[in-house]
């Protein structure tokens, strides 16, 4: 339902990969041909060069990126993951209730036993994300590889996704932003949240800023990987040790799992 964009050559025939395409098509195959045709028609002979690797890095429907967080290994005084995320994406928390927080450290205390532990909470990248369901413009969407994102180009700032999210994973940008990171555009009046460092994944780095930071501290409380790949570290850990999802009662099938809460 976009504004038509069929300039004489700027458009892209019938093979243009648009978001309205039918769910039945095998998106990956469709994408390959679509992307190729699109780039080729855009500028004959010139842009063919850049296309091959682009397709390789695209969101892959066979993968589902996920995180496993071991609360037992997460010290309450460590917030390396939060700092790393803030540095990577350029958001800043100065303690104001209007400041964004893509990831936060939450301290838990069992009401009956008094046992305390600490863990990071961010967008849980649900398989059935309520924020995607409620978004009126479709700006809130789930990528083929399971990452839940906000398309700020179509976000109108209605904040219904923030009402719908059970994890408070989203923030609204309350004031004009300047000096954004090139890989993380952010702007006033739109909603944002953890994007699982999607730019790093598309680059083929296969990790996120928070997980890297956690590794550097030596705590190794976070594992990142492909939940669909039985051979990945995260799948093996999930297969061998108990884990939970937050608000499992909602049956949202989260991409982020926790251990030892």
């Amino acid at each position, binding site marked *: *339902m*976009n*504004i038509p964009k069929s300039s004489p050559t700027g458009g892209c025939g019938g093979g243009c990969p648009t978001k309205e395409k039918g769910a039945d098509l095998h998106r990956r195959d469709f994408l390959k041909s679509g992307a190729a045709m699109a780039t080729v028609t855009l500028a004959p002979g010139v842009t063919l060069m850049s296309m091959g690797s682009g397709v390789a890095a695209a969101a892959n429907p066979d993968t589902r990126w996920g995180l496993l967080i071991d609360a037992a290994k997460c010290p309450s005084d460590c917030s390396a993951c939060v700092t790393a995320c803030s540095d990577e994406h350029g958001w800043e*928390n100065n*303690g*104001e*209730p*209007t*400041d*964004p*927080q893509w990831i*936060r*450290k*939450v*301290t*838990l*205390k*069992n*009401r*009956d036993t008094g046992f305390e532990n600490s863990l990071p*909470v961010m967008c849980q990248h649900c398989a059935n994300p*309520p924020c*995607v*369901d*409620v*978004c*009126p*413009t*479709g*700006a809130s969407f789930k990528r083929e590889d399971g990452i839940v994102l906000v398309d700020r180009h*179509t*976000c*109108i*700032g*209605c*904040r*219904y996704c*923030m*009402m*719908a*999210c*059970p*994890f*408070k994973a989203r*923030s*609204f*940008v*309350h*004031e*004009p932003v300047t000096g954004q990171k090139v890989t993380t555009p952010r702007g*006033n*009046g*739109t*909603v944002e949240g953890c994007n699982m460092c999607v730019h790093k994944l598309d680059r083929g780095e296969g990790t996120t800023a928070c997980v890297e930071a956690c590794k550097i501290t030596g705590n190794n409380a976070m594992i990142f990987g492909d939940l669909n790949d039985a051979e990945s570290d995260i799948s093996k850990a999930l297969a061998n040790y108990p884990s939970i999802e*937050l*608000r499992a009662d*909602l049956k949202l099938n989260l991409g982020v799992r926790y251990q030892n*809460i």
Partner: protein
Amino acid sequence: MERIIYRELKSTPQIWGFLALLGVFIAAAGAVVLYIEHHGHIVTGMDNQIVWGLPHVFAIFLIVAASGALNVASIGSVFGKVAYKPMARLSALLAVALLVGGLAVLVLDLGRPDRLIVAMTNFNFISIFTWNILLYTGFVAIVAVYMFTQMARGVPTYAVKTAGLAAFLWRLILTTGTGSIFGWLVARQAYDAAIMAPLFIVLSFAIGMASFLLVTMGITHLTGRAFGAELRTRLARLLAIFIAALMFFTTMQHLTNLYAAEHWGVESFILRDGGIYTTLFWGVQVLVGGVLPMGILFHPTLGKEAGLVVLSSLLVIAGGFAQIYVLVIGGQAYPLEIFPGYEVSSSFADGVINSYTPSMLELILGLGGVALALAITIIGMKFLRILPNSLSDANVGSKV
């Protein structure tokens, strides 16, 4: 019984003065919108915990009242009560005006109001919000057609009836949609209940009827046109019944929650420990907006006093406003239960009752929406044949 003659309002200093006053409010709201768009929502009282604030309370109030304002027209056209028919045009006009006022507030509080065209060209049909956009625009269209069938010459009765029925059904669906915005939110303890849709419908009956009574009494007073006591009392009685129904649904909402242990937290927050929200609930919503007006309007003599009917309508509106405030803001103030059974704390207000102080800007924006609704109503009556010359009992046959 004379013929009912509809007449435009005359140009009197009162009318123009009132319009000018409304214009001041609308202009102030416009300035606020520019200010917020320039500085961002940081200048409002809303934040990342209370994401919907006072503007949304105003918007939802106006939208819900809009569908309720159509009551009188529905009773006339759909249920064939002759006495209500002369008021059908005003009822329909007020419905459209309230809806437009509410929508304006809603749209102008968006983070990116300049992207209205995006909202109108990108639709996610799984979202109840999207459906509401269509329901709102559809409501304006259908009620406009309904008004046209009433006002044009030579339109057969069955066409008026059909249009009235369509508008009636549409407004029920519309309020269902508005209620579902909250009813379908699984994340939050205060919402996520099927009763939201019918609750909103009953709420719309009450505050819509109260708004209609106030506007009708106000405009007939201002223009010196008759508004029969018998007719007014009938409408007031109806309002009392709507309040009773609203209180019944509210009771059921809370009783249902109280029965389930998982909702004890939020219920004790609203009903006992919520500070301002508890005060608003018991004091304004239940007592001032429910018990008191019901007592007045069901009373055999007090219910016939014009002044007390005005007072009761105002009380109902205050109560309805408080109800929406408690629902929208109170519902967000209560913390999300992400880790049931744990005491939680974080830098992002986990486990904390969120505080919210509406800013003056939000109040001005909300009042601008009310002013816009009233201005549309008055301009409509000024230039179109909406209001009958006389709504006296003899004229409209209210005793029939």
